[in-house]
């Protein structure tokens, strides 16, 4: 149990330290769920739950300076307790969501108070021409942050197991049903955010095309990507990539007037 709790803490550390290794998406539920599965001896279940949580947290990505719920702590604890209590994805979501929201408060405490105060030392080292000092404060600052959440996850898994089991057993069926329904809808939150971010009036029709190919014809995702590449190729050949808001259109309009 202690060793498993250590591994759970380590997985949270890896997820948090993703910021140190190129934001390589090691902190996504799709990866963390599989790691938790490996640690707890049920890789298949971990991977499946991790992917389901990935869908729930799909749109949650630190964009600019917005701080979303802490999906790293949420998904690691959610997957871990879903596996140890022998329950499925509904339990994982029931645990992951509150854990993620609570953990986000601690994240904000670091981002807003602890880290900025520590960062002042970097300024002092700069005044002293001390590059080792800048490096040290930079490394320490981030790794203290990562380690804090590893300890939180360790403690939660080590001592929270019974509490979570009792909690899960006490959940009435109307709530489980409700959360199961909500779990089905939640991925749409992320998709809606992504669409808000990347769709324009001109490109929205491709969203529908992807949907129809999958809904009516059952084309798998890789097939959808291939179709999309063909469409991009066709549009390129037909010279349809003309930015409406740029000078190019204006230049063409001018040309038309001249002729």
């Amino acid at each position, binding site marked *: 149990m202690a060793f498993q709790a250590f591994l759970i803490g380590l997985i949270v550390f890896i997820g948090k330290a993703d910021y140190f290794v*190129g934001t390589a998406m090691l902190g996504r539920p799709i990866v963390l769920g*599989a790691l938790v599965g490996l640690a707890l001896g049920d890789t298949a279940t971990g991977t499946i739950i991790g992917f389901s949580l990935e869908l729930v947290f799909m749109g949650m990505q630190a964009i600019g300076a917005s701080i979303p719920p802490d999906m790293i702590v949420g998904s690691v604890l959610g997957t871990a307790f879903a596996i140890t209590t022998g329950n499925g994805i509904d339990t994982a979501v029931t645990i992951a969501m509150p854990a993620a929201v609570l953990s986000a408060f601690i994240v904000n405490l670091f981002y807003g108070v602890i880290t900025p105060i520590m960062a002042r030392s970097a300024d002092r080292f700069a005044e002293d021409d001390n590059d080792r000092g800048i490096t040290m404060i930079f490394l320490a600052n981030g790794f203290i942050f990562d380690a804090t959440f590893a300890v939180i996850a360790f403690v939660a898994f080590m001592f929270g197991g019974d509490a979570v089991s009792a909690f899960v057993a006490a959940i009435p069926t109307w709530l489980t049903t409700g959360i199961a329904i909500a*779990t089905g*809808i939640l*991925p749409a939150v992320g998709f809606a955010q992504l669409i808000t971010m990347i769709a324009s009036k001109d490109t929205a029709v491709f969203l529908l095309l992807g949907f129809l190919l999958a809904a009516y014809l059952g084309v*798998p*995702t890789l097939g959808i990507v291939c179709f999309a590449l063909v469409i*991009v190729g066709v549009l390129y050949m037909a010279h349809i990539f003309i930015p409406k808001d740029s000078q190019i259109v204006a230049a063409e309009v001018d040309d038309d007037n001249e002729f």
Partner: protein
Amino acid sequence: MTTSSNEKKLTQKELNSIFWRTFTTSHAWHFERQQHMAFAFAMIPTIKKLYDNREDRIAAYKRHLEFYNCQTTMQPLIAGISAAMEEENANNEEFDTSSISSMKVALMGPLAGIGDSLIAGTLRIIATGIAAGLCMSGSLAGPLLFLLIYNIPTIALRWFGVKYGYGLGANIIGKISDADVMHKLTTALSIVGLMVIGAMVATNVGLTTPIAFDINGTMFSLQETFDSIFPRLLPVCALGALYALNKKGVPVLTQIIGIMVIGVVAGLLGIFG
């Protein structure tokens, strides 16, 4: 003006250390100056190579400890340009160092927008979508495939970012704001991204209704009717509603709590399930 005999020149060694050190972009992130320490950390070998004078080094460290925040994959490009400008500054007494800070501020916004929508918003989704099948069958190959599809292009982008950032120096601002190339690339990638999102809405948003009517002894299922007219109609409606909420600026947490409440109420009333 310095003579050419002691002209300062960066070598591949410093550029390599920018490449490796920029992997740490969001480490020690905070609200006040965000990714500033990581940026200074990435510039340390360059600064030490270029400036023999203690005061110049101090000024450079302080310059790169100013506010900085951009999508992580874009940092090698901005750091590469910074390195070229620092090199110019080391060799040219006329050089105005405030232009280095201005360049960083000018580029971080647009590049963050491009990076967030193309990399976080599109590449990540494509990687998730392609890995979906393997993940759902519980295979470790799923997460591995996800990581490979995401990381191979982004690491390549980082490498070319340093290379071209340093190579083009300050001129790159002109290249990037040459909107045509960027617009074509953005449009092409958003087409791929949107089609994958559309497909994932169809396969991954689950919303059905158990409502059924008994008409003259024949059971009439509302869900079967939906399926025969427009498959996955309810997930699309949910998506449309959430999109409208996003447009109105309703916070994500509110949306999630709302969905939980709707789930419970609709479950009790037997509308969804």
